[in-house]
C-alpha cells in the first residue's frame, strides 16, 4: 500500500509539473504556482525575522552605540571616535586583550591537542560499547552551566580547604595558591575551560576519523607506516578539514571567554585573568559606559573576523580535501 501511495504522489507531482511546463493552468493551478513562490518565504520568515530582530539589529545598534556616550539613564550623546580613543589608551583594556590572546593560544592548543589525542585513542583502541560511553562522557561537561562548574571548581581549588591541595598533600606537595596568584589563577581558568570545552572538538574529531577510509590506513601499512607515523602522514592530513572547523570554532569561543574567569577569579589577582568580554561587561553593566563597552565589542569582533579570515586563508595551504 505504501508503494501505491508513493506512486500516486509521484503521479500527482509529475502531473502538476507537466501542466506548468505547458504554460497552461486554471485558477487553482495559478494559486498553486503562487503558493510555491511564497511558501519558501513563509517558512523562512520566522528565521529571517528572528535573525533580523535578535542578531542584525543588536549588531547594528552596538556599532552605532560605540560612537555615543550613554549611561542608560541620561540621553545618549554623540562623541565620534572618543570611545575608541579612550579604550585604546585604557591599560586595563589593553591587558585584557593581551590576556585573551594568551588564553586563546594556550587553551585552544590544549583543547584541540587533548581532543585529538583522545579521539584517536577512543576510536582506535576501545571496543564499540566503550566508545559510546566515552563520547558521552567527554561531551557531558559541555552541557553543564559554566557558572555552576566554575563555582564548584572554586571550592576544589581553594588553597586552604580545597580537594586538589588535599590530594596533592599526599604526594608531599605543599598547598598551591591556585586562585590567589597570577600564574595559579591563569592555570585554573585554562584548565576548567579546556575540561569543559574539549568534548565538542573531540566529537568533531571522532566524526572526522570515522570518515577516513580504512583502505588508506591499509595502504599506508603496506608501505611500512606504523604507529605515530601513520597518524602523522595519514590521519592528520586527512583530518585537516575537521581540524580547520574545530580550530575556527574553538578560537571564536575562546576569544569570548567570560564565565570561567568571572566566577573563578573575577579577573584577578590584579588583571591577570581579566578578559576582553569581562571588560565589556564591566564597562557596560558596572560602570554604565555602554558606548565604551560597544567600542570594545566592535574591536573584539574585528579581531575575531580577522583571525577567522586568516585561518581560512591559511587553510588553502594546510587543508587537504579528499
Amino acid at each position, binding site marked *: 500500500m505504501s508503494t501505491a501511495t508513493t506512486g500516486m504522489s509521484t503521479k500527482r507531482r509529475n502531473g502538476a509539473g507537466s501542466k506548468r511546463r505547458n504554460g497552461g493552468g486554471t485558477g487553482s493551478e495559478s494559486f498553486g504556482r503562487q503558493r510555491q513562490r511564497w511558501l519558501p518565504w513563509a517558512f523562512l520568515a520566522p528565521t529571517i525575522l528572528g535573525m533580523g530582530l535578535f542578531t542584525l539589529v543588536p549588531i547594528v545598534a552596538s556599532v552605532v552605540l560605540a560612537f555615543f556616550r550613554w549611561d542608560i539613564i541620561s540621553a545618549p550623546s554623540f562623541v565620534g571616535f572618543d570611545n575608541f580613543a579612550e579604550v585604546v589608551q585604557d591599560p586595563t583594556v589593553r591587558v585584557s586583550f593581551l590576556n585573551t590572546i594568551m588564553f586563546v593560544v594556550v587553551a585552544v592548543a590544549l583543547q584541540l591537542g587533548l581532543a585529538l589525542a583522545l579521539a584517536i585513542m577512543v576510536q582506535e583502541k576501545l571496543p564499540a560499547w566503550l566508545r559510546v560511553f566515552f563520547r558521552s562522557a567527554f561531551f557531558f561537561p559541555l552541557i553543564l552551566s559554566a557558572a555552576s562548574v566554575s563555582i564548584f571548581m572554586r571550592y576544589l581549588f581553594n588553597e*586552604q580547604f580545597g580537594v586538589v591541595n588535599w590530594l596533592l598533600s599526599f604526594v608531599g606537595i605543599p598547598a598551591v595558591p591556585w586562585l590567589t*596568584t597570577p600564574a595559579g589563577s591563569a592555570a585554573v581558568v585554562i584548565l576548567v575551560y579546556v575540561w569543559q570545552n574539549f568534548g565538542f572538538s573531540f566529537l568533531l574529531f571522532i566524526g572526522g576519523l570515522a570518515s577516513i577510509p580504512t583502505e588508506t590506513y591499509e595502504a599506508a601499512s603496506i608501505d611500512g607506516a606504523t604507529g605515530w607515523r601513520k597518524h602523522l602522514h595519514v590521519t592528520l592530513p586527512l583530518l585537516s578539514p575537521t581540524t580547520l572547523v574545530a580550530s575556527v570554532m574553538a578560537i571564536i569561543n575562546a576569544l569570548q571567554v567570560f564565565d570561567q574567569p568571572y566566577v573563578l577569579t573575577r579577573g584577578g589577582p590584579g588583571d591577570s585573568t*581579566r578578559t576582553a568580554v569581562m571588560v565589556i561587561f*564591566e564597562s557596560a553593566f558596572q560602570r554604565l559606559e555602554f558606548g565604551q563597552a560597544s567600542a570594545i565589542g566592535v574591536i573584539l569582533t574585528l579581531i575575531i573576523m580577522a583571525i577567522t579570515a586568516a585561518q581560512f586563508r591559511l587553510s588553502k595551504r594546510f587543508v587537504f580535501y579528499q
Partner: protein
Amino acid sequence: MPGSNGKLREISRRTALGALGAGIVGATVASWPRLTGMDIPGRGDNSLSIAILGTAADAAARQRVIDAFAKVHPEIKVKVQAIQAADWKDFFTKILTMVAAGTPPDVVYVATEGAQLFAEKLAHPLDEYLRRDAADMKEYFADVHPSLVEAFMYKGSLFQLPIDWNAANMYYNTSALQQAGLERPADNWTQVDFRNNLAAMRKARPQDFTPYYWTNRLFGGVVPWLYANDTSFLKESKSTGGEWLWDSFYAQDPSRGLRSGGYQWLEPNADDPRVYESFDYLRGLVKDGLGVRPEEGGGNSLVGLFASNRIGMTPAGGYWVEGLHEAGMKEDDFDVQFFPRWRTQRHQFGTAGYAIMKTAKDKDAAWEWLKFASSLEAMRLVFPTPNTTPARRSMVNEQLYAGRGPKHWKVFYDTLDKFPTTGPIPAPPQQAAVETALMKNVSLAVSGDENQLKQALASMQRDLEIALRRQA
C-alpha cells in the same frame, strides 16, 4: 508504524502537524498572561513595585509585611520582586538593566554600596516627605543611630531610611581560643594583640586550620584595617547641608556635632603611608601563615568553614548569627568582639534601606511604603531572627539572640555608640569601578614581597584615579 493505506498515513501526518499547531496555539493562549509580562511587578497595573535582593522565598517572607501594609493602606497595592544576585554590585547591575529595559521598579532596597549611585542618578530625595511627616518620624529617628542615617545623606538630602545594618566586628571560635590557652580579647585589644592571638592559635593547631580567614570584598576585607589605622583607600570628606534633618531629629544627640550633609569620596588615597602600613601588616599575616591570601568575591563557604571549627577568627556583622546557628553552632561555640584598635578603633559598617526611584509612578504611595517599612511593627515582621542587625536599637535585644548567641551580642549596636566616628563602606557614585580598582590589587598587595606591595598600591592609586574620573 506505516499506515495501512496511503490516505490514512497522509492524514495521520497532517493530523500530527495540526495537533502540534493547535498545541502551540493552545499553549500560547493558556500562557498569555505571562507572555504579556503581566507578572512583572508593577507592569500593566498601578501596583507599587518593590525590588529587593533575594530569592522568591525572601519575597514570600515579606508577605506578612505586605499584608500588614494592606490593612493600613488598602488603596495601595504592592508587589515585591526578589532579584537573585551574587552580591550588591550584581543586584545593582540587574536594576540598571531593568531601567534600560524601561521597566524600573518604583522602590528599590539599596545597600550602602549603591546608595550614592542611586542618590546621584536614580533616587528621589525624601526631604519633602520627612519635613511633612516629621511628627510621625520622630519615633523612628529616636530609635536609629545617626551614623546609619548619615550614610544615606548625599549632598544635604536624605535618600533612604536605614532598615538594617552590619558593622565589621570580629567573630571568633571559642574552642579555638581555648585550645590556644587564650581568653576573650579585651574591648580595646590592639592589632598587636590580634596578631599574638593568631600566632597562639596557629601554634595550637598547626594543620587544617586557618587562624584568620578574610575575603577580598569591599565589606570586611581590607577596609576595616584601614579604618582602624585611621586611613582609607579613598580620601574621605563630608559635604555641607543636612542641618534641617539633624536639627529636627537629632538635636540632643551627643554626636550631633559630627553630622553632615553626607560622605564624599573624591580622591584616591592608596599612596598614603598608613595604607601601606595596613597592607604590610596583612601581608605579614599571610606570609607567616596566620591569615589566608584573600580570594576575590569569596565568602560563600565561610559559614561552613567557621562552623566546622577550621577558622579561628573572621570579620563579619550581625548577619552571620542565624547562618552559624543553622550550620549547627551552639550559642557558646562562637562569640563576637569589637574590631582591634590601631590608631583608632573606628569600624566599618554597611546599611540598607528602601529608595524611591525618580521614575516611580506614585511617589506618595512609595513614601507610605517606606514609612511603614521603617515602623517597629513592620521591622519585627521582617526580622524575626538575627539574619542581620535591625537599624532600630530597641530591636537589638536579648530576645532576638536567645538560643542562638553570641553571648556578647551587645557588641553589635555598641559599635556605633562607643565609636561614633564609625563610618560606612566607601562607595562613591562610581562604586563599581572603585570596588574593582580596590579588589583587583588587594591579593597582589598582600601576597608578595615589599616591592610587589608597593607596585600593587601604585597600581591601585592609578586605577582609583581613573575610576573616580569616570562619570557615575
